């Protein structure tokens, strides 16, 4: 099920929720993001796709406000990224499942809930949403990779933010669970939450209203799944993506 694309909404005059303006980031003396500009509208699901090391995580961290920026600006919900007012309104799930190994699942989610000023019922709702209600009392050190990812996702969702930045939330999850999570992301988007989701699995791009394709710090394409299929003439989004990458490589080479 596809949600509206940012392009449509912005043309209708809706204010962008995330506005990245000529962003440049240099990490370890090498440019991680080159002059990137993009606008994302409210209530959309935007997929951020690209090969490893292309700058997806750097872009997400810049939007959340944990990345030192070289130049350019990022505005979220009308305020500079990382401002104190945004911290309850923007949820972030980092790429590695950053949870406390010594704590149980329920303690981890309750801890993050209390940091956001939410109570235990919000924590329970988040645990149910990711399907871990049967494992609430398990210690995080004993969990599988997919379960740790889900705990990390629950910690990001617990504050019911207006903007959710999720760095590879479905990695290590089986297809049934992935379908379940995407249903929830769709429901959140319909209710007005804006999602930015990065992924390696191209099939998931169908769930997104917008696709941002990145390569080596450049925004190679900002398109929708149907538009991407038309432009490349491919049925499968994976082939379409590979075709775009090959085209951009040829452009750079010749």
């Amino acid at each position, binding site marked *: 099920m596809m949600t509206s694309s940012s392009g449509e909404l912005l043309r209708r005059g809706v204010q962008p929720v995330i506005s990245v303006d000529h962003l440049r980031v240099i990490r*370890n003396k090498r440019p991680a993001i080159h002059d990137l500009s993009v606008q994302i509208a409210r209530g959309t699901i935007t997929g951020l796709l690209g090969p490893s090391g292309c700058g997806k995580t750097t872009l997400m961290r810049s939007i959340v406000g*944990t*990345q030192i920026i070289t130049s350019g600006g990022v505005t979220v919900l009308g305020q500079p990224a990382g401002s104190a007012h945004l*911290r*309850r309104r923007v949820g972030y799930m980092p790429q590695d499942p*950053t949870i406390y190994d010594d704590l149980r699942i329920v303690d981890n989610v309750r801890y*993050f809930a209390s940091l956001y*000023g939410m109570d235990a019922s919000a924590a329970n709702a988040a645990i149910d949403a990711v399907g871990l209600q049967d494992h609430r009392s398990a210690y995080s050190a004993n969990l599988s990779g997919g379960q740790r990812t889900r705990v990390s996702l629950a910690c990001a969702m617990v*504050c019911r933010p207006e903007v959710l930045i999720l760095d590879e939330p479905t990695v290590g999850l089986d297809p049934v669970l992935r379908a379940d999570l995407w249903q929830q992301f769709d429901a959140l988007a319909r209710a007005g939450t804006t999602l930015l989701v990065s992924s390696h699995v191209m099939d998931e791009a169908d769930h997104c209203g917008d696709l941002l394709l990145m390569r080596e710090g450049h925004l190679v394409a900002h398109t929708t799944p149907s538009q991407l299929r038309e432009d490349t003439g491919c049925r499968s989004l994976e082939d379409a993506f590979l075709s775009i990458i090959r085209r951009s490589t040829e452009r750079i080479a010749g």
Partner: protein
Amino acid sequence: MMLVVPSLIITLMYFMFQHVPSRPGAPSGFNNACLILLGVFPLLVMFLITSITMQRERASGTLERILTTPLRRLDLLAAYGTAFSIAATAQATLACIVSFWLLGFDTAGSPVWVFVIAIANAVLGVGLGLLCSAFARTEFQAVQFMPLVIAPQLLLAGIIVPRAVMPEWLQWISNVMPASYALEALQQVGAHTQLTEIAIRDIVVVISCAIIALCLAAGTLRRRTP
């Protein structure tokens, strides 16, 4: 373990000194050693535990993540300080009870002041631990800060060689180390029945150093990183 081990070590020292003859009129060897240990353990243990815990938070990424929440940095430091100070209080309580009641440790001054100085040392240990964790990239490095930061302080504070007897340049260095004041305060309480001005000054210095360390540690908690 953290609760019981210092008491066990003080008991071990008691048995070590059991047959050591002491000069009449002078406090026994055990008395001197116990006084120093009661002050040193909180500093040592809290420094180690705090620096390793904080370093784990940094390395695992949880520190960056919780700084994206509305949590303020001073709240985080206050939480760490409070939690570890409570643990230190429990540890010091047990150690004082064991020393004063069971092992016959005695001080001229009130045991309450020994307890207060132990807690002040613990808070100092927490502050220094939080500050030093910023300079360690791994737990392996964090552990090595203990011999680097704490051991010289304790040696120069006058545990083995009295400060007055050390060369002048070492005395100058010792004057800027907080542990010197902590140990001097303990010795004052051990020797005098009433709380002397020197002891009060020393306690204030130790607590001020702890607060300065905590403020500097706040500067090492950054929301934006490269």
